[in-house]
């Protein structure tokens, strides 16, 4: 079996008295798309933050292509090839769409190549017309795409999407799903989402988080039929 692209071993995060992530073993293959679901507070975003270096785990390891990145700086991890679209869009609001994407593209290209890459990315996320507008003035759905464009422009190997369809209209959700499928042709993705319709449009394998640890990992159809999964969403305690 080929070595996994990303692997976590016994990964844990404690904040004061709260155990946000508990002994998580997780593995993702090259080019795989995995969905991460679970009720609010299950630890998904915290898990992501440990993958990108925004948080240092209190215990356990994160391995990217076999390299231990558990305590690396966020900017070094980004350079290794992990990109994240955060839950609350984190973009450069005071700059134009073009400048936003340029900042990302120019990390791997220079001069004219960078400008060309920016134009390509603008088209890919459908924002060519809005290119000169200030990101802070865009609608929510558009800001999500700006962030997506930012992340893609650095050409990462692994892309983490934290609720990419949140707050979007039906059309925007469809478009985002299409974009995600297209990205998955060449890149690995982990997508956190609540929107089950969206998940069904993109996913094959789903990992379910609950109270900081992995409850079950299975295909989309099996997950949807799993009574434990239904219980944690409805509030009943899952069997220990």
């Amino acid at each position: 079996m080929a070595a996994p692209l990303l692997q976590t071993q016994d990964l844990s995060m404690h904040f004061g008295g709260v155990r946000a992530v508990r002994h998580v073993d997780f593995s993702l293959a090259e080019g795989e798309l995995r969905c991460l679901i679970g009720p609010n507070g299950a630890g998904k975003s915290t898990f992501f933050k440990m993958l990108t270096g925004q948080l240092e785990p209190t215990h356990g390891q994160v391995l990217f292509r076999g390299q231990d990145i558990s305590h690396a700086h966020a900017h070094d991890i980004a350079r290794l090839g992990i990109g994240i679209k955060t839950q609350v869009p984190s973009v450069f609001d005071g700059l134009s769409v073009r400048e936003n994407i340029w900042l990302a593209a120019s990390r791997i290209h220079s001069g004219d190549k960078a400008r060309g890459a920016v134009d390509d990315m603008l088209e890919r996320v459908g924002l060519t017309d809005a290119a000169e507008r200030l990101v802070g003035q865009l609608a929510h759905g558009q800001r999500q795409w700006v962030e997506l464009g930012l992340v893609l422009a650095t050409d990462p190997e692994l892309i983490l999407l934290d609720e990419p369809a949140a707050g979007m209209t039906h059309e925007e959700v469809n478009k985002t799903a299409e974009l995600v499928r297209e990205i998955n042709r060449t890149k690995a993705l982990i997508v956190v989402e609540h929107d089950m319709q969206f998940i069904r449009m993109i996913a094959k394998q789903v990992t379910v988080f609950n109270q900081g640890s992995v409850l079950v990992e299975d295909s989309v159809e099996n997950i949807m039929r799993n009574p434990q999964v239904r219980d944690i969403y409805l509030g009943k305690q899952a069997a220990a």
Partner: protein
Amino acid sequence: MNARTLNLLGLGVVGVAGIAFLVLVPRLFELDVVLELTVYMIMAILALSLALIWGYGGILCFGQSAFFGLGAYTYAIAMFNIGESTIPLLLAVLVPAAFAALLGYFMFYGRISDVYLGVITLTVTLILFNSINSTAGPEFHIGSARLGGFNGIPGIPPLNFPGNKGAPIDLEGMFYLATASLLATYFGLRLLLASRFGRIIVGIRENERRAELLGYDPRAYKLATFTIGGALAGFAGCLFANWGNFVSPTIFGLAQSAQIIIWVIVGGRGTLIGPIVGCIGIQWLTTALGANQPSGGSDLWAKIFANAPLIFGVILIAFVLLVPKGLVPTLGDLGQWLLSSFGKRKTRLQPKRAEEG
């Protein structure tokens, strides 16, 4: 390409105006006016140093006067010891830069942010003030230069043409040097800010976390920006020591620090022209308010304190509350609003054409 042509036009205007100013002033005005304008030019360079660090870099530095003072003192001390001005000039830039690099490393690699940056930088300049203020006795000297304590260091020899000790710069020459330096600084910074480096530090200012997640190390970029700003301020300090032939510890004081910040706020934080305008405007106001001598001596501050603090205080409060973006950006916004209302009127006259298009 409209924004870009406007940009180039602006640069052209500044360039032409600057050169005209450089050439015409000594011909049109008396020496005392030239002297006054020289210090305005020097302070404008100081303002630009903070504009870079704070306006573009987003680094809240309350102690920019520390680098200014270090530059002035370094020049004075080196000049008394060496006698020929090339090395003192170099040191006057390198010592503050090194100090900024050290302090910057301490702060940025310690992940200190915002408010705490302000407190630490303020404290640093106060440490310098307190330390140097108390070095009045003859036992406090570096080589043949006495530090002078609260008396300051008088009689600082002026710069000379490189390599030629016997050819010191005269007052008119000082004006040319200061103005040319200001123009060079302005255009140099414009180049820097248009470069990849410049655009990245603006990105870091806008959203440090996102810049980090894209793979940029914000600590390194902030350190570089802070060091360049420190070097610029040090250079301004060297010119200042030359201009008044005198330096005293008040250069490290709270009042000087406050001044620099006020220039940038009043002029406009996100621009370069703004702080220049703010600086020169306020300097002029200070002079008009009753300081009959060129700024520099320690008893000037005693005089100024009678009037200027009141007025500056009101200006600062008013600007923060009412014109938070500063003069130049607000005027820019006003201009844009006027232009766009002209545009609106045009389209209203030709509605059919727009629909057909």
